[in-house]
């Protein structure tokens, strides 16, 4: 089949896509965008996290056909076209949140989505939001630091309708 979609604001199309292929395979192998990583291809590690029409998805679990007409955002779209890093990207480098870096693209997109919803997240919010992204190297402390650092540099967004989605439960 022929697949048309927008990736990082640019229209793309791919021919002869086999119906069993995932969005991840299409991005990596057909569109030449290997920034999204493949570590489990089972929806467990978050290395392939991209945003599809704004929502976080595991690209390995999205069938290529489901992405027809969708707006996809990958790590390749985060920095300015002139190479200026997004605040989150800079914070990850500064905080030492990148070791092997294989988890980094997925974490960046998950953290970006969090900061849009919750510009001043508590640690518990960050942990909850990033719990779908495995990192085997860093022990997560520096990743927390990076998100905290980026949050201090992110202008306050208008009050979000849904805060963390995790209101503490009132004791009866």
């Amino acid at each position, binding site marked *: 089949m022929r697949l048309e979609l927008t990736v990082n604001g640019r229209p793309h199309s791919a021919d002869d896509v086999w119906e069993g292929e995932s969005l991840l395979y299409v991005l990596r192998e057909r569109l030449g965008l290997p920034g999204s990583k493949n570590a489990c291809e089972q929806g467990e590690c978050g290395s392939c996290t991209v945003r599809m029409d704004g929502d976080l998805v595991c690209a390995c679990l999205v069938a290529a056909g489901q992405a027809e007409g969708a707006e996809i955002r990958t790590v*390749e779209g985060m920095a300015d076209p002139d190479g200026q890093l997004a605040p989150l990207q800079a914070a*990850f480098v500064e905080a030492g949140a990148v070791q092997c870096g294989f988890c980094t693209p997925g974490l960046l997109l998950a953290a970006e989505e969090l900061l849009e919803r919750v510009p001043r997240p508590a640690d518990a919010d*960050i942990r*909850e939001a990033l719990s779908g992204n495995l990192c085997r190297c860093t022990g*997560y402390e520096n990743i927390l630091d990076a998100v905290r650092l980026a949050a201090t540099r992110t202008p306050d967004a208008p009050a979000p309708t849904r805060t963390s989605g995790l209101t503490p*439960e009132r004791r009866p």
Partner: protein
Amino acid sequence: MGVVPPPAGLTQRAGAGQGTEGGVGTSPQRPDGVLKVTGEFAYSSDLWHQDMLWGHTLRSPHAHAEIRAIDISEALTVPGVHCVLTHADLPAATHYGLEFQDQPVLAVDRVRYQGEPVALVAADHPETARRAAERIRVDYVPLPVVHDEASATAPEAPVLHPDRDDHHAEHVPHPNVVHVQPVVSGDVEAARAEAEVVVRGSYTVGMQDQAFLGPESGLAVPAEDGGVDLYVATQWLHVDQRQLAPVLGLPPERVRLTLAGVGGAFGAREDLSMQAHACLLALRADRPVKMVYNRYESFFGHVHRHPARLTYEHGATRDGRLVYVTGRIVLDGGAYASSSPAVVGNAASLGVGPYRVPHVAMEAVGLYTNNPPCGAMRGFGAVQACFAYEAQMDKLAAALGLDPVELRQRNALSQGTALPTGQRVDAPAPVAELLRLVKARPLPPERPWEALDGGGLPTVDLRALPGGLANTTHGEGVVRGVGYAVGIKNVGFSEGFDDYSTARVRLAVTAGEPQVTVHTAMAEVGQGGVTVHAQIARTELGVGQVSILPADTRVGSAGSTSASRQTYMTGGAVRNTCVAVRAEVLRLGRERFADQHPGWSDAELRLSDGAVLAEDGTVLAGLAEVLGDTAIDLELEFRHRPTEPFDRVTGQGFGHVQYSFCAHRAVVDVDVELGLVKVVELAAAQDVGRAINPQAVRGQIHGGSTQGLGLAVLEEILVGPDGTIRNPSFTDYLIPTILDTPPMPVDVLELADPHAPYGLRGVGEAPTLSATPAIVAAIRQATGLDLTRVPVRPEHLARG
């Protein structure tokens, strides 16, 4: 040729006008950091060539079987298939291995573990290759499996390697024993009479997986000279080359390797995985071949941490002095030797831990079984021992009515102590001090889930409770425990291994400015070695701009990125080479300027901020002036002081070059009704000798501690009695998420090791040792249960 290159040379500038900032002792940003956050860093699974084929491996479904016949004819008819290979197609050597060449490249007439490679396919789409492999018919006759010490060493047990001719073969009690290492000192029999309190225990450590995120992958490109260029994620380019050349039937210089981006390693990339297979397919098909394992295959494609059974007896006096320790450690090495002999040596020689023990009788045994092959993983034989000896120390403390930290401190080794191997610790060994540091930290608040909301009403934050948002408890039945542990790990390769590394350093003027280029074969697997090399070059040569060339086999071996050795070894090689380059710069300067400037005759000239400085700090000349068009380019090797093998009978010998120490305090909350554990805090203290890059040091301690946490409560490859893996996926093999991982405060000591470059001490492994027993000690304290195996699972904890 449309090959997507592996990571390009990494250049980092310290910053205009900042001179040689970014040197040793600071934390400059990683030179590959920007590439990694923008998605431009090419990992081995990202490589691409316009003509490439995809390789796939057919693996054995049986843990032990005879192969009667292999029929590839049907697979060859699948459209898109370019070639299918079995053992019959191997051009030269049929076996390989790190220590013994006991592992078939492709199974010949027998498979010895589930997942053993049997045949290979190259096709134009990965799915085509996979489907074609399914059409290969293999006629297996299952054989009985051996799966533990009793079954492997029974008189009638099937012998897994009947033709073994390795140097341990004639010394082992049974051919299914890879290696035995005793360590005997003092007189345990006599000491038994002296001991007033004796504790005994048996312990089990499950099979842990390295679970690096970047899958085994690489691209093999046939070359015009009949050789092959392999771009691959590995830990040691030259040992891959050494094993590949005989298998491919090529001279080593025609098997060229370049490091592609590595997504973590932790020991699992020390052995070959797809390297030989991709090269064989590429040479046969005469096309580039890419191979990428998926996660399922990855669980079969690399060696794991040795599962272990350990039996210990500790005897002490009433006042808490260790009198003797006996121990036996049985490590299951699986079907092939890999690095089992060295793991056995480590477990035996580090088996009593960082303690002074006058009388010792240890023995470590490595087995051949039909379980998955085991080899290197962070902590390498010291992890298993640490879990057991630290449990024993707690048991002993309880029997003596002593505080567990106090007991450890009373017996802690220090500089000058003789180890059970007879080797004296000849560098600082602040074991008691590390324990003091973790103990002195304020404890985290009790019942962290209880909070007051904005209106002052009490609320429960489920996220802070065991079970989290699963809403399993509101705090009823949750009890807290605190536990301590400390461990000892060797740094570098031991037992007489000729451990060395090579660095090439070039200093030249580019566009009017001095620039240093560092070329080594060190595998950057995420640990940050590339950052450290640039720091060392800046410090030694006083030049801000340092380029790190891609690692490849065009420069001498760097040895393995393992055993916490790379900053010591390749860092040492970079330093030595820079020192030689500096001497050459000064020689050149004297030659060119001595007449004009008498200052050049000073003995103590320095390089700093791109200039040559006299002792008093006067600038004699800019480096650009001194060098002119001359480029200084040197390649040197660095060796650590020699070690020696342990005596086969007594285990005596100067076996390890350096030791590193880390202590942990774990705080846990346990829901004793459901058996759920929440690790609340995991504090660490480690002596690193010298923190070359403090941020990277902390990152290593965090990462290592987290893997120890995984072994304590989550991670285990479940192997059935038939030798098959039950959970080869990230759905069922659980590694810690950010929710499972607590805050991890770290104290770093810097007590210089006089024998090491800059006084540094390898960092990466020690934190993995003590995190596990500290957490289990905390769970024991919370529950009162006598937990003897890791990982601890809910069914071990839930009451009644």
